[in-house]
């Protein structure tokens, strides 16, 4: 009979061999899946967009996560819509999963497919994801809304920024990257009680070159919060005119160093003088 030491050795070596098999099998399955996805993508790109039966047949072979991966990796827009439409048979299931399935990654995948298919419920589902308090769901919703890129999605993002449901810089970046007219939606940000919201209002006003808000931005230059003043001064350097330079002069005497630094840059920009180099943290 084998000694305990020998039995332990056999056990450890067996685990080691099992691991080798697991690595090999996992790698094989991964490569097989990658080949299957590549073949499906190739078939899709070669199929006529109008042939719904063919699309349904190709898409029917993919799981929800694979379909989502294909959409998020990028398909031509018309094909993406056609592919998403091809799964409308699963619509009820997708809505149920996106509305609050146990697995957040399945939920994201379902929401992405629904958004690509222009489903009516998409805004409601994405808004719910934004406000879920789960960072991964909120991040995914922001990405999808930025991609939808219409007035309603811009409005949802602006409201999310105001409510602070996720990192405001990420939501602001998504609003910034959109192309739909959205400058008018900033109004609610300027009046917010929270200084961070006013800060992002001023920042976005500058980025979107929202000249209709010049007067509001000018008011924010005297905001009690230094960061808001900084953002307003920065924005004013973009949307103000040379005639408004006197407004900036007061900010050159601001008690906070970084506001002065940004005021100097904005002043230089408005008056057309060469940019002056001022460290951001002076003060």
């Amino acid at each position, binding site marked *: 009979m084998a000694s305990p030491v020998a039995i332990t050795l056999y056990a450890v070596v067996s685990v080691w061999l099992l691991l080798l098999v697991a*690595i090999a099998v996992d790698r094989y399955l991964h490569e097989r899946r990658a080949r299957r996805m590549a073949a499906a993508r190739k078939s899709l790109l070669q199929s006529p967009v109008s042939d719904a039966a063919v699309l349904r047949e190709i898409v029917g072979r993919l799981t929800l996560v694979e379909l989502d991966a294909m959409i998020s990796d990028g398909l031509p827009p018309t094909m993406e819509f056609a592919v998403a439409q091809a799964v409308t048979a699963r619509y009820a299931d997708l809505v149920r999963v996106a509305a609050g399935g146990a697995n957040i990654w399945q939920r994201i995948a379902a929401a992405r497919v629904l958004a690509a298919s222009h489903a009516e419920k998409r805004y409601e589902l994405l808004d719910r994801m934004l406000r879920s308090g789960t960072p991964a769901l909120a991040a995914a919703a922001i990405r999808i809304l930025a991609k939808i890129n219409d007035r309603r999605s811009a409005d949802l993002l602006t409201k999310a920024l105001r409510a602070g449901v996720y990192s405001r810089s990420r939501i602001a970046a998504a609003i910034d990257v959109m192309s739909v007219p959205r400058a008018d939606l900033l109004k609610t940000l300027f009046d917010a009680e929270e200084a961070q919201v006013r800060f992002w209002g001023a920042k976005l006003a500058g980025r979107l070159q929202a000249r209709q808000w010049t007067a509001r931005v000018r008011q924010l230059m005297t905001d009690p919060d230094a960061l808001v003043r900084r953002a307003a001064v920065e924005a004013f350097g973009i949307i103000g005119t040379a005639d408004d330079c006197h407004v900036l002069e007061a900010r050159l005497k601001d008690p906070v160093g970084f506001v002065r630094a940004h005021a100097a840059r904005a002043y230089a920009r408005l008056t057309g003088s060469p940019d002056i180099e001022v460290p951001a943290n002076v003060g």
Partner: protein
Amino acid sequence: MSVDAMARLIASGGYIACLVYLVATTLVFLSLAHMAIQENRERSRQARVEDFSIIRSSPFTIPVSVIAPAYNEAVCISASVRSLLSLDYPEHEVIVVNDGSTDETLRRLIDEFELEPCLIAHHRTLNTRSIRQAYRSRLDRRLTVIDKANGGKADALNAGVNFARFRYVCCVDADTVYYEDALLTGMRPVMPDPSVVVGVTSHVTLHSRPEDAEHDEDGKLRVDRHPLVTFQLLDYVRAFVWARAAWSRSNYMLCSVGAFAIWRRDVVLALGGFSPEFTCEDIEFTFRVHEHFRAAGVPYRVQALAEPVGVTEGPVSVSALVSQRARWQRVINETVWHYRRMLFNRRYGAVGFLGMPYYVLAEVLAPLFQALAILILPFAGFAGLLRPVECLQMLAIVAFGCAVFTGASVLVQDRYMRPYSTRDLAYLMMLAPWDLVLYRPIIFWAQCKGTVDFLLGDRRWNKFERNRRVSSLGM
């Protein structure tokens, strides 16, 4: 008591102590499995959800000051700085701090990047050795070079922090070549919650010559086939994919690596900067951050990522490896000893009850138990406790036990990151069981040396000689 009985008693005691240690460390590693897998899976899924195209181009992405201290790095400084300047990130500056190099480091930087002396407004919040001159590149205004009197890596980092303009600083090594997406990867956990995430570190992979490291057609790094480098690479994979990922999940990750550590600048300043009192600054500063926030009861996170963000130089000679690892052992001992008050202290939560005990058990005490095992095994055979064949079987158990953990780490890494080609994967797995006989003895020797140096109060840096110089001598 007869001599024979005495020998049996000593051998039995030592044998049981070693077995208990082996079982305890194995259980600790096993207990990390679930959390390591969860963490790696979640990070990989989050990476798919994040919109890198927005982060990459948005002016609202948090800007970062990259600080690269350099001491006698003439061999690879140009490649390293080029890689830092070509990082794919919306806004970052690169501050190279030449810490009184005695070689051509500064000259190469001046020539390669057309540096010109300039005056740069900065705070002297952290005390450092005197600054000789600041330079800015004519070719790329994002590059600043600070030339200062030699004061060690911590002092150089502090000088860089004084010159940094942005809210986050990323401390890097000048002997490492970074991937283009290194900062995007590193800042990913910060962006959702900058008020809480105060530090991020990430996995850096190894090559004997990072600047010449080759990638295959799929962009996967070809594993350096030098066995010593491969064993170190496996060591890093175990550390980042298994241990640090699991520690991060419960927020008791106690070692941000010097090769890539992002910190919120206000935290660095509030804690008085990096300490030159320790042999290395990285572990000590991570301990200090945990101590500070846990004592104050303020929510915070220090995160370790398993994704490789660059390639660093791994020593290819035994002496260079011993020199490097002895220094690491010394600094672990220094830090654990300095922060011993946190051990089993309720005030420090998981750091006191999980992080610190891990360091004591698996790092500080490791050389002691390894030495005991080496002495006891033949002694146990001599005393008749184990037959010679059982001694060999015990060694094989430990060898394959280590290989199991290595294999599990590689499996997790491959499943969520796919960083290797199939051939490299097979090579790594075949080499893993040889770790105990070909690599561990070197590390054991280095750990013993580091422990003795610590006990003697040695604080030297012992920088290892660069590989290319070694090869140029025909070694």
